[in-house]
């Protein structure tokens, strides 16, 4: 679809969990190629395997079979240390439950990300918060912020280190629809500005409107969608 070179590639990705219940096969041969700067929405029912894919892409988990390449590098060959460095420098994360560290202030949460990337810079952290519209709320603790604000902090945390890729897991899942829309606009807008590749796992149909490309996951298999309409139940 896109002429840009792919930044993420997977080859025949399989993942099986050793959990009780059925066969526990979360992914069944996923081949994927995402271009640099693309904004991708990934849909799918609960348990379809989309979060698993995200975790595998982030190197937080290892595939049972198959290969993942980020910027042409094989994740499996990187090792734990290499994957940690990858997360530090090349990946940003935005979670459904925000997952801010409750004991750190908004600014400290953002700074943490920079610190891990080896560039602790408080000015940069404040700017980043400013960019997500949280100027003046730097010293608040997560529990002193609303859900939307917390997710803005999470976005700032992901963006601040200017990673080439941001993975977002249900970024609006815990927000009302108005706030959700604002967050989506903010997240995709910032990514576009910075040329960042964004993969959003979502339930919310409106996510589709902000994406360049729509993927759907069903029973561990990945399908390309042409338009947002096809997603309707």
């Amino acid at each position, binding site marked *: 679809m896109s002429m840009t070179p792919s930044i993420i590639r997977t080859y025949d990705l399989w993942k099986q969990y050793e959990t*009780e219940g059925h066969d526990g096969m979360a992914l069944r041969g996923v081949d994927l190629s995402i271009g640099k700067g693309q904004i991708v929405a990934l849909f799918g029912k609960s348990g379809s395997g989309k*979060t*698993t894919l995200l*975790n595998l892409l*982030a190197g*937080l*988990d290892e595939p049972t079979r198959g290969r993942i390449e980020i910027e042409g590098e094989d994740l499996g060959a990187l090792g*734990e*240390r290499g994957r*940690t*460095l990858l*997360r*530090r*420098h090349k*990946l*940003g*994360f935005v*979670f459904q*439950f*925000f*997952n*801010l*560290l*409750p*004991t*750190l202030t908004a600014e*400290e949460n953002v*700074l*943490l*990300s920079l*610190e*891990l*990337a080896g560039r602790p810079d408080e000015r940069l952290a404040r700017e980043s918060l400013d960019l997500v519209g949280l100027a003046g709320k730097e010293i608040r603790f*997560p*529990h002193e912020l609303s859900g939307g604000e*917390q997710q803005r902090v999470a976005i700032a*945390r992901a963006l601040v280190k200017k990673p080439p890729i941001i993975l977002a897991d249900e970024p609006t899942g*815990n927000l009302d629809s108005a706030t959700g829309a604002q967050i989506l606009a903010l997240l995709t807008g910032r990514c576009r500005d910075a040329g960042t590749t964004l993969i959003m796992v979502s339930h919310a149909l409106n996510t589709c409107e902000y994406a360049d490309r729509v993927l759907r996951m069903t029973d561990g298999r990945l399908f390309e969608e042409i338009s947002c309409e096809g997603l309707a139940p």
Partner: protein
Amino acid sequence: MRSVIRSFLRHLVRRRSLSILQLLGIALGVAATVGMMLASRSALQSLGTAVDFLKGGTTHTIARPAGPMEETVLAGIMGDPAVRYFAPVIDRRVRLKGGEQVRMLGLDPFLDRNVRSITARIGVSAGDGKTDEAFSSFLFDSRAVLVDENMAKDLGLSAGSIIATLQGPLKVVQVFSNPSGEPLVIIDVGHAQEFFRMKGYVDRADLVVTDENAFRQRWATGFAIESNAQKARTLSALLGAFKLNLEALSLFALFVGIFLIYNTAMFAVVTRRRDAGVLLAIGASRGQVTGAFLVEVLLLGVAGGALGGVLGYLLSKFLVEIVGSTISTLYFFLRPSALPWSFWNLAGGMLLGSAASIVGSLPPLLELRRVRPVHVLRGRTATRGMSKRMGTIALFGTACLAFALVLFGLSFLHVYVGFAGAFAFLLGASLFAGFVIVVAAPGMKHLFSRAMGLAGRIAIGNIRENLGRTSVAVAAFMIALSMSIGLGSMIDSFRRSLVWWMDSQLRGDLYISTKADVNVPEELYEELKTLPGIGGIDVFRNVPITFHGRPASITSIDASVLERYDRFGWLEGGDGSWERMKRGDVIVSESFSRRFKVGQGSRVTIETARGPAEFLVAGVYYDYASEHGVIMMDRSVYLRLFGDRTINSLGIFIDEGNPDRVKIIEEVKHRARAFGLPFATREEFHGRILDIFDSTFAVTRSMRVLAVIVAFFGIAGALMTFFVERQKEFGVYRALGFTTGDVARMTVAESLGLGLVSFLMSAVVGTVFALILIKVINLQSFNWTIFYHFTTRPYLVTGLTALAASVAACAYPVWSVVRKYPVMQIREE
């Protein structure tokens, strides 16, 4: 990294109650250990100081192998060229009117000042001018004594005070300083002879000898010469079992302490799991996460350890009292003084706190390292569905138990091996905690749902589903309860065995004086023999001796009287032994037999006043009177070989059917009273022995307190963690219409459930532990057989302890629930 650490440490402030609980958990673990160690050290140190203080410049002592030494021997010692100085000593005890016994030394101030300083300063105390008569009073007033400052303080004595004793009043002429904690009364040696009715005798002479070999050669026959080194060895052997007991208690305290810390570290991990997941997801390495956690643990360890050091010091002051009274009953009349405060306590506490924290945090740390961010970030707690792992852990437990069995098999090597076995057993048993919860859960669910309805059922479900937390709490609590049951059962069994022994061996109708009391004048014995109606009089004499360089004792009795009236329990030989004793054979106690590997038919050689004499062992009898071993012989044999006519006590036997029994006993009492001698009926005598027994085990019993503390922190910690971990669930409960009362009840049920599982488990583990203590540890360290008796008391006491602790432990969590629950909602953060 700074932010990572910061994010962890801020938890300590945010979850204040949990942090305080953690801190206290560590502090108490450290306090228990430090307290016990300090107490045992100060007890032993006081003992050492006391011994050193009394030793002065003495290099050797000379005494008869048994019994007092004729004072005429002194003139011979005086002329020995190897003797630089010598000083006669009468070393006895005096019973105060209050019943307390105090060591009383008869010394000669002229000769004694060459070997020690006590009498050198009689009259040399500047001050109120009252002491100026001290020296002449001491020399001329037959009741004049010096008392040491500790005793003076305790009893409010000063120069001029009168001390009432069972043998009449003593007049204090001066108080002397005594760096040791041993209360001492000093009297002139001549007055001591009159006071103790031992005219012509002293107990020993303390010597400063220049040429040991020459001296020993000249005094080889009929004397026991002991160098200070030998004396120290004898003393340490004498105290060996006691020291071991204290060490064991210290180790148990440490074990429990580490468990507490492990427990608290586990809770720390719980509250960090999600953070760890987030950190890993955004690029923190596992090393950084582990490091941050370690910093937190160390911080808590150091702070808790410091607090524990201080608490432990305070605790030791209390424990020293108990330990001291045990020493006093068993060995010396020593009141150990607590060690002075030292900053080493603080440093030691910190070190112990952090070391134990690291050891205790290892398992949770490993868990943290295994955290899968994927799972925690999705809100799952890793500990659910751990029942399979519990099976694996239980397998480890089985291996541990097997190892314990091997150690028990090897326990003959050293008593420490037995201890190691006991630890391995407890550790192994604790690993079964999770497994037991899984197994017991269905039954408990049934029980609790009937008793407390839905809240009860959910509570048990929570226990079952949070095995990672609950199994640790249960394990810690169970160990503490097992120790309580085990020690309790051991003590009860011992007590029952003792009662059996007294009933078989101490069957006299009346006992005049005791080994620890005033000697009985032979006149009284002669007088009583002529009294009509008395069936028999046992003349009891017990003297400490050194056998193969270790302490033991000789007891002389009247074999024909005991043959007729007593019912000795025999390990070897039988009632036929009495006949052989009359002909000159001896019997030995079980402890002697085990300690020196001597049995029926063996021959033992004892140093007597007439040189070495060999005896045939006719039998081995059960005995709890001395862990060091007793050789028992007929008085006629004893008198012939030792020439010591001292009588420690008389046992009066009257035939069962004698109609004048009461009258005769009254008459004997009357005559004993005329001699100023204490007496006791069989019941009173037995009662007194049991009192001593009970006070001996006071320290051991005090360990129960530990169980309560462990329970409290273990359970309270578990409940608090539940609460922290499941805020969301509480929101759901609320949404479902659970009232605050329901949730509070549920918390109580969780607490009781944990208590119940722990108790049930400890009933089994504790019983086995009791058997280990009886069959392995006791046998190894005291060399005597205790018969296991099942008694319900330890179980009841422990059960009540568990209940009380469970209820107390849920108090704070319930309060938290009541306070916070009404405002909870279904939302994260």
